[in-house]
């Protein structure tokens, strides 16, 4: 099927279901093209497994263009592999060498239980958003969009925080499995915008409370999350979130 000349050894985490004990299983692949994406290399592996009568490796993926946030492989000890600012689906085999051994594991965090093989359950992120990651405006209640000018720098900063794709690499790489980068990105986006002010402090409190309830760890300012985030979400967001979280304790109840 492929036309390349790379030979690889894969060590892939296989786990039948949430309750089963998993282990790393070795697979040999040959004739891999450097122009293939990492997931296309997995397609080749799965095709071979199916043809042999084995069960293919289950992994999350969808858009394959780095934006949906579904793909989630921990490759050689790094979420989304060796390249900065790149998701697994946009990683290409030219980033590896012929003869390499590649270890592929799922995201590891208590709040992201493994479902099967490399697929984990990230619904905790949805519940954090449901706790307050929105502006309470029903459809049909909006004023003209240009009635509220927003300084470009402020709008740009909100956009940068909003670039989060919710993949969970921040949690996977954090030694405490903290979800603070994810949570703070949404809190920051809305706190930076005038539309987000009315619920600003209440939002910070309820999203942080949900984050804790899901079993994510705390932040110890290591910065691994920022280093590994495929969208370059900044650690500054965590500082903003903490500021709002603590400020919430000092503002009057009517404002929270």
């Amino acid at each position: 099927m492929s036309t390349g000349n790379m030979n690889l050894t894969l060590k892939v985490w296989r786990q039948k279901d949430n309750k089963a004990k998993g282990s790393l299983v070795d697979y040999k692949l040959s004739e891999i093209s450097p122009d293939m994406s990492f997931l296309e290399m997995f397609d080749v592996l799965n095709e071979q497994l199916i043809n042999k009568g084995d069960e293919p490796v289950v992994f999350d993926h969808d858009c394959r263009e780095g934006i949906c946030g579904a793909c989630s492989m921990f490759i050689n000890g790094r979420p989304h592999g060796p390249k900065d600012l790149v998701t697994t689906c946009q990683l290409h085999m030219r980033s590896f060498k012929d003869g390499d051994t590649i270890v592929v594991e799922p995201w590891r965090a208590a709040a992201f239980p493994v479902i099967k093989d490399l697929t984990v359950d990230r619904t905790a992120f949805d519940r954090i958003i449901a706790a307050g990651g929105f502006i309470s405006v029903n459809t049909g209640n909006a004023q003209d969009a240009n009635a509220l000018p927003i300084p470009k720098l402020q709008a740009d900063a909100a956009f940068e925080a909003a670039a989060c794709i919710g993949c969970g690499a921040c949690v996977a790489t954090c030694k405490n499995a903290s979800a603070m980068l994810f949570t703070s990105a949404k809190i920051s986006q809305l706190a930076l915008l005038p539309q987000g002010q009315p619920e600003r402090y209440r939002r910070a409190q309820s999203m942080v409370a949900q984050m804790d309830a899901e079993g994510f760890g705390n932040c110890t300012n290591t910065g691994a999350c920022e280093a590994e985030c495929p969208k370059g979400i900044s650690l500054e967001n965590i500082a903003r979130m903490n500021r709002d979280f603590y400020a919430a304790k000092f503002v009057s109840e009517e404002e929270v």
Partner: protein
Amino acid sequence: MADFNANIPEGELTVKWTKLRSSMPLVNPANKRSIEIVVVGSGLAGASAAATLAEMGYKVKCFCFQDSPRRAHSIAAQGGINAAKNYQNDGDSVYRLFYDTIKGGDYRAREANVHRLAEVSTSIIDQCVAQGVPLAREYGGLLDNRSFGGTQVQRTFYAAGQTGQQLLLGAYSALERQIGMGKVEMFTRHEMLEVVVIEGKARGIIARNLITGELERHFGHAVLLGSGGYGNVFYLSTNAMGSNVTAAWKAHKKGAFFGNPCFTQIHPTCIPVSGDHQSKLTLMSESLRNDGRIWVPKKKDDNRKASDIPEDERDYYLERRYPAFGNLVPRDVASRAAKERCDAGYGVGNSKLAVYLDFAANTERYGRIEATKHNIHNPDKATCVRLGLEVIKEKYGNLFDMYAQITGENPYETPMRIYPAVHYTMGGLWVDYNLMTTIPGLYALGEANFSDHGANRLGASALMQGLADGYFVIPYTIGAYLSKELATKPIPLDHPAFVEAEASVRGILEKFINIKGTKSVDFFHKKLGLIMWEKCGMARNAQGLTEAIAEIQQLRKDFWSDVRVPGNINEFNPELEKAGRVADFIELGELMCIDALNRNESCGGHFREEYQTEEGEALRDDENYAYVAAWEFKEGVKFELHKEELKFENIKIAQRSYK
């Protein structure tokens, strides 16, 4: 036969929607609480509908096959969303957006629907900004706009190259808010596998829990499908890997007509195929055509590097053929022009199936403007390029990075190589003005329906339509139906129709597992894709289509006797999911070819080689084909054609010209 009436309101075009909206039957708040609505899909259309209906007080259940509603494929839309705001004071208006859309669709869309779309477009932008969607702004703090193909005004709102992501996250946050309040029950990793029809009305669905494999029955007074398009019938497309036709196809097989299935959009600017391993194609946003000029060498089989080809040996063929619109002609026109040049031997790159998209001229132009801003007078070329690259980077940085990552080439230094790829499907479930299919109580929204884009969709109009349908159309139009359903009590899930539907789904799933053939699902999907691309792709002809129909029928037989689906039904089994989707794609592929063969004209994205002007432009036949082809599914994978006459009362139907 099912009800087949477009139900277009009476009256002047400009007041149809306002009048209908104000006279539509309502459901009072107390009654809304006891009415249940099933929404399938959580993209722009599904999420916005689910959130808005819940805000209004209905009990909503929303389903998506992804692990989170935030991952629906709307998220990947790059370039922008149109709205007739006229913020640029360049002569835009609701009428002009309406006109551009009808003309862009090559006069194969319904006037009334398109006008309503243009009317509500402005409210969408207001709503999104109120939600905190960070659309691009100018230094004055107001919203910025850019140009898209097929228009001469700047009406496209955007958020860098991530407009779909930001709009979807806005709709997702509205949806999550309702989930948090318990007004929407969300079912992630669930796939709809059947519509349950009771006494002629849609009353619920059978969904499979993709993790446990369990089949579930869900009742709804109405069922809404916002399940997206079917571009993956071509195997290679810009759609996400999971995008599929299954929800729409199950509805079709239960009686919902399928409208204009052959209308497919081939997007002109995608990264070319690099090898057999290719699993999907990546779009380079149409917004790049604002600043990129498209060219090929004037000499055939020119193997020089782009930078070694002097200016006067380059053919800027779009600017040459279409001086009025230049690089911003609609997608179908741009795609065919690229194919024409490559087929004639002027393509570039190793495969020769690519053209250049070159930013050099505009980089320098931007640099000159920047130099003036920095008080640098008479700047040299190097300064201009340096300053210009910063501007380009700010506008398109993420797209350039994506291109570099996929191709291994640096687009800041060398022109991009691009080629057309399947991107969007204008066809879809036939719906009336109220977005109801031919099954009462079953609605289709967004890309899943056929209604607004005719034979070709203009750029930045898909996001507009998805959100228009979900936020501003269905919340009103569904009242007309539900107001008559107040007496309907929730139907018990042990009703024979639910039992039967579940048994038939189980039967199909068991069949897949029990075939135990020799070929993977992907093997058949790739084969189907190749037939579709070669014979029902950018150019079609009667002979090819006839062959394709026979080949697909054979492929269907082979699939059902030789596919190998590993694992079991009662477990997380992505191969089983794919098998179901490919089985449906195979049936759909045949219908697309039948539809393309039936339509003896060229229009928009449907180009029949037998019907073209001397200059190679699409040649419509308005006398015989100014209709929507609505196909009815018949026993044994047969299809019967129904026609909905298209009446143009407000626009003079004419040969489309972008010259």
